[in-house]
């Protein structure tokens, strides 16, 4: 789960990472009250997961209440690259002597956390990585050993940070690593990490991705939300424990296993169709889960046909068939379904479907055949 800037900063503050003092606000009144409490000048910052907010008008400096009000009014509700601003973060404006970049990422390739530091902060770090890779100091940390003080020094010296901040930069890197481990993040990024004119070090932005699988250990993290990123179908799916990603097409997809579902999207595309979603019913899906998933798929008004592509392992095809039958009983779908069942208990599943004789439901023997059929039934995607 990607956190909003202010959620990340609140996490940082809990672990002692220095951040400017600030308050979140969901209304203009809250924003002005926060600004008054913090003291001017303040930065009024749109809380959306988009790089380059500032250039798009999502960050403004206010030097008095009138300006704070005007900026809050302008930014709240604003659309930034398709995301609506529901929340603001009001924080004391910082004087900046230098802008650095720091991050801890879960490096899958090395199977170890990777810590990065650059003095070229405040800009697109991917561009820096491409144009001037030596400007970013890298260090992998052995997870059994953890981040040592010398790691911080080594990164600071390699990145060429100013001599007087080698120690505090090392210390903040250690803290960021601690946040990464303690909160079970897969990404902790600060851009810019600023040096103030008083030679203090502060995280002026915060980008944190948490591991949803760890939320049973982190109840408070599980409750964090990003209103701007919430799609109604995705929220519905999440509440039902389904892995659902909304896409732009018109063919609803349900499969079991992420790989098979992705492959199904690809095959549908090759057959000339466009998927409306990714939905992995997961391993061992019971009938109720299938019924529930059908509801989520059909809640997307763009869907004109649905493809079930099931290859049973843990998932039993008879359970899938029962779920589909129950869904038809409850929801009475008006769009056609193409169903392909293979694997564990496929014979029973197909038999159940045949007996139920659901209206507008087509069974297909192969994945390719099922894709062709659903594309044919769905017709072209609406604009």
């Amino acid at each position, binding site marked *: 789960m990607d956190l909003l800037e202010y959620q990340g900063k609140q996490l940082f503050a809990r672990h002692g990472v220095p951040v400017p003092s600030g308050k979140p606000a969901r209304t203009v009144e809250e924003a002005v009250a926060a600004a008054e409490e913090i003291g001017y000048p303040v930065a009024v910052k749109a809380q959306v997961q988009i790089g380059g907010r500032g250039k798009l008008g999502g960050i403004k400096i206010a030097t008095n209440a009138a300006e704070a009000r005007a900026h809050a009014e302008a930014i709240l509700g604003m659309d930034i690259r398709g995301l609506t601003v529901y929340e603001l973060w009001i924080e004391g404006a910082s004087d900046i002597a230098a802008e650095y970049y720091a991050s801890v990422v879960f490096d899958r390739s090395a*199977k170890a956390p990777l810590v990065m530091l650059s003095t070229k902060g405040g800009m697109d770090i991917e561009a820096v990585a491409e144009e001037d890779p030596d400007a970013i100091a890298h260090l992998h940390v*052995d997870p059994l050993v953890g981040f040592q003080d010398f790691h911080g020094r080594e990164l600071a010296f390699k990145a060429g940070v100013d001599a007087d901040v080698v120690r505090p930069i090392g210390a903040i890197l250690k803290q960021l690593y601690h946040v990464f481990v303690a909160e079970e993040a897969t990404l902790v990024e600060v851009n810019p990490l600023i040096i103030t004119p008083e030679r203090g070090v502060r995280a002026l932005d915060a980008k944190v991705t948490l591991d949803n699988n*760890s939320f049973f250990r982190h109840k408070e993290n599980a409750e964090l939300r990003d209103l701007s990123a919430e799609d109604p179908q995705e929220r519905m799916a999440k509440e039902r424990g389904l892995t659902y*990603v909304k896409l732009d097409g018109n063919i609803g997809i349900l499969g079991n296993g992420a790989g098979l579902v*992705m*492959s199904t999207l*690809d095959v549908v595309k090759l057959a000339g169709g466009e998927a409306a979603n990714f939905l992995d019913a997961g391993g061992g899906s019971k009938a109720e889960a299938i019924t529930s998933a059908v509801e989520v798929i059909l809640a997307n008004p763009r869907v004109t046909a649905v493809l079930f592509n099931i290859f*049973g392992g843990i998932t039993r095809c008879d359970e899938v068939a029962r779920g589909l039958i129950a869904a038809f009983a409850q929801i009475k779908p008006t769009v056609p379904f193409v169903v392909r069942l293979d*694997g564990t208990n496929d014979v029973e599943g197909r038999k159940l479907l045949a007996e139920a004789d659901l209206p507008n439901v087509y069974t297909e023997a192969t994945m390719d055949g099922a894709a062709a059929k659903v594309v044919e039934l769905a017709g072209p995607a609406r604009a």
Partner: protein
Amino acid sequence: MSILIDENTRLVTAGITGSEGTFHTLRNRDYGTKVVAGVTPGKGGQNVDGIPVFNTFEESVTQQGANTAMIFVPPPFAADSILEAEAAGIELIIAITEGIPAHDELRAYSVIKKNGRSRLIGPNCPGILSPGKANVGIIPAQFFKPGNVGVVSRSGTLTYQIGNVLAQSGFGNSTIVGIGGDPVPGTDFVDVVAMFQDDPETELIVLSGEIGGDAEEKAAEYIAAHVTKPVVAYIAGFSAPPGKTMGHAGAIVSGSSGGAEAKAAALEAKGVKVGKTPTEVAELAIELLGAAA
């Protein structure tokens, strides 16, 4: 021959007393796998359809000679169970559990690597099937028969799909290995491809990858340098939008790396044939094995 599991596999299942654990363990036994024990803390002394249950892995090793573990415990306890199996000296640990926290996986992987006495397959994988010899995990064995195609895959159901198409074309399998799609798989494509290269029965290797990470790219390098047998690959996720998590924790496309196009290109650049659909993979396999024969 086969790799990883065979007639000498002596399986212990962690979480055997759970409903899924029981179901799949008995299914594995029905297939012919030697299931020698189960582990459920606090249920030592019980049995599951005649399979003795122990409180600890250590007992399953000392009393029943278990050498392979299947992990079926819920995600919050799975890494602990993997580490317990490792500490008990079990050589092969196959973790089926899905949804293990990434940092838990990292820790389990790091400990196993440090001590160097066990191999972990998974987590979040369907297991391993050596047709005609042993089945450990949730792969539906009825679709597969013994043969000369080795399959290694990050995705469970996709494996069955590909294996099924191959089977319908008359091919059997030496071993089918699901390495899982999680961020920190215990075993990578490279490891399994190397085993297939050394396995005399395997004449063709099928590699089924997906978006995210760089395991396919590393496999491409390895294959070019070390593998003389023909390899056919499939990559899922061409139509996945960048930046979205697609179910598998592993299946994240971030930036330009980890995308399906790049992976396919990397493999093709090293002479690996890449099928666009599972069906095409089977067709390529037929072509190559025909050529190889």
